């Protein structure tokens, strides 16, 4: 699979396409981006993920040239572009609102950027037709933006921003206005187009599922800083902080004191309860406060105490959230701590093994849980 081979960030000789070097952006008193340094490589599908107000849009607008950094440099292919205006850089942006020109047809919208250069007419026509084919919009070329659906408008915006074959394409919440089903289909389409054109994509999103699906690497942001940059699976399996673990997917966080035992750490989380054993993300000292993060789907539920499991704990079913394919069980432990565990509904609901108030055993392996400092 190409996905596994493609990892220029692990290659010390690879030259990044974009380099943010100690970039700070302040709006008056407010610091939107705080001393940020990051490398993005060619052909990457890079996702900036974070809650609203975390600075991800500001970061993207600096790449597009709509904001200039207060301090620091932004390099594109080795050149400092921090002060280059948007019309002078080979970066195009797909706007959240799509920003299609309402007075122009779909065809003219796509041709708009091409006409600004010195491209001959025939070549422009060829390029527009190519873009229309790529986004399957041939039938709508003569229509105006208000005469097509939201999904089609999204594709026009994509075609228009790709028409000039930019070195870097920025996507600002590109799928935010689409409904869930269409969004999922479009995610795969986006990945497909990215792969076929070989363009570097930087996407801004607050939807973690979207970031996980499309991106080669995800940067999780908080208050103008990047908390973690990693591949989607690394972000999910080995988050470096409670913030990241909590932001991506569902997680149980159990706070306790560390007790290192070889390469594992035992967690003392409540008086008179068995210790939990997990893999530490960083070295811990004895007695240090630590957070045990474990995903609900990695915990199994059984009626009897399972034999040979590393971590077992008894509890009572407090609540069941039925989601169709899976159910999330909220299990209250002896100390009052509630742990979420997920179980696939591979039987019909009437034959469900556990119900409210049942005593159950939860168990998981020592590699399932990860220990975090903060």
């Amino acid at each position, binding site marked *: 699979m190409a996905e596994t081979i493609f990892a220029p960030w692990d290659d010390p000789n690879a030259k990044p396409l974009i380099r943010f070097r100690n970039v700070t952006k302040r709006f008056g008193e407010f610091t939107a981006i705080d001393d940020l340094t990051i490398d993005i490589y060619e052909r990457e599908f890079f996702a900036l993920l974070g809650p609203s107000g975390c600075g991800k849009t500001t970061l993207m607008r600096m790449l597009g040239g709509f904001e200039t950094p207060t301090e620091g440099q932004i390099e594109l292919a080795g050149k400092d572009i921090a002060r280059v205006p948007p*019309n002078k850089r080979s970066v195009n*942006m797909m*706007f959240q609102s799509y920003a299609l020109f309402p007075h122009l047809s779909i065809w003219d919208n796509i041709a708009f950027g091409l006409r600004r250069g010195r491209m001959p007419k025939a070549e422009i026509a060829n390029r527009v037709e190519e873009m229309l084919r790529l986004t399957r919009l041939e039938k709508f070329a003569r229509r105006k933006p208000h005469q097509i659906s939201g999904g089609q408008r999204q594709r026009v915006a994509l075609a228009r921003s790709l028409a000039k074959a930019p070195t870097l394409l920025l996507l600002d919440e590109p799928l935010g206005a689409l409904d869930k089903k269409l969004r999922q289909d479009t995610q795969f389409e986006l990945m497909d187009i990215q792969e076929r054109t070989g363009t570097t994509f930087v996407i801004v999103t607050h939807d973690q599922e979207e970031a996980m699906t499309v991106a080669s690497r995800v940067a999780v942001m908080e208050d103008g800083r990047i908390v973690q940059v990693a591949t989607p699976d690394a972000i999910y399996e080995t988050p470096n902080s409670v913030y990241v673990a909590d932001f991506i997917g569902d997680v149980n966080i159990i706070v306790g004191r560390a007790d290192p035992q070889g390469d594992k750490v035992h967690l003392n989380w409540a008086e008179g309860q068995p210790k939990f054993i997990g893999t530490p993300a960083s070295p811990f000292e004895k007695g240090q406060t630590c957070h045990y993060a474990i995903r609900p789907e990695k915990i199994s539920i059984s009626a009897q105490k399972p034999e040979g499991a590393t971590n077992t704990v008894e509890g009572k079913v407090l609540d069941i959230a039925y989601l169709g394919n899976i159910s999330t069980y909220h299990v209250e432990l002896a100390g009052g701590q509630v742990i979420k565990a997920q179980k696939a509904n591979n039987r019909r609901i009437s034959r469900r093994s556990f119900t409210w108030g049942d005593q159950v055993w939860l168990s998981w392996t020592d590699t399932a849980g990860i220990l975090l400092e903060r």
Partner: protein
Amino acid sequence: MRRFALIAVPYLWLLALFLVPFIIVLKISLSDIALAIPPYTPTLDLSEGWAGIRRFFAGLDFENFRFLATDNLYWKAYLSSLQIAAVATLLTLLVGYPIAYGMARAPQEWRATLLMLVILPFWTSFLIRVYSWMGILSTEGYLNQLLIWAGLIENPLTILNTPVAVYIGIVYTYLPFMILPIYAALEKLDESLLEAAEDLGCSRLTAFWLVTVPLSKQGIIAGCFLVFIPTIGEFVIPSLLGGSRTLMIGKVLWEEFFSNRDWPVASAVAVILLLILIVPIILFQRNQQKQRETDT
């Protein structure tokens, strides 16, 4: 029945306030001047029955319209009115567009105040405002005093009673009618469209020509008609500021009516003026219709 009542209200309004007066004016324009009260013949006398009605219609003719065609004063006045209206509309657009643009780009909290300032002159009587322009533009007026004081000129300029004064008066009076529709169009303009244009390789100026101007087109058209249509028939401004040298059909009409007391010819002038105005009014309505269609 209720639907009929709803439609009937505007139609009755139109009938009572437009169609009936128009028919009266049309009738007078087909009559002959007479030394009587009212100063024209024939008048409809229903007491004579059918014969009276027939005599009434027999007395009507197109003589006044033929007279308008033969005397070149009238068509010169029409042409000059159209020309003055066209030039004044263009000048109003040139002054009004930047103001509307500035207002639409002003911070949100300022816009209501700016809008208020544009409408504010309407709180004073139109006549008083035109008279005060006489005080500003006359040879001893404030403008000349200021220019002489500033040392820019030595002898006062003659502005009052020239076409320049008429243009100043028209631009000043009709500016809000130009600003408001353009402002309405520009305010709706999505800022990200301009960013998209820049992103796709436009400079600020080309983005303005290729995005801002086309998207405010309907506001420009509406504003131009709102200035052009009433300016053609304008009477107060040319007679107060333009002096005897400015020829406009509104002034001619006034003189026929009040100085010559020739109601039939004055009515004929008014009927022709209305026919001339119908063309831009229909075009204006089309533009409004189109705007409604694109908005939905």
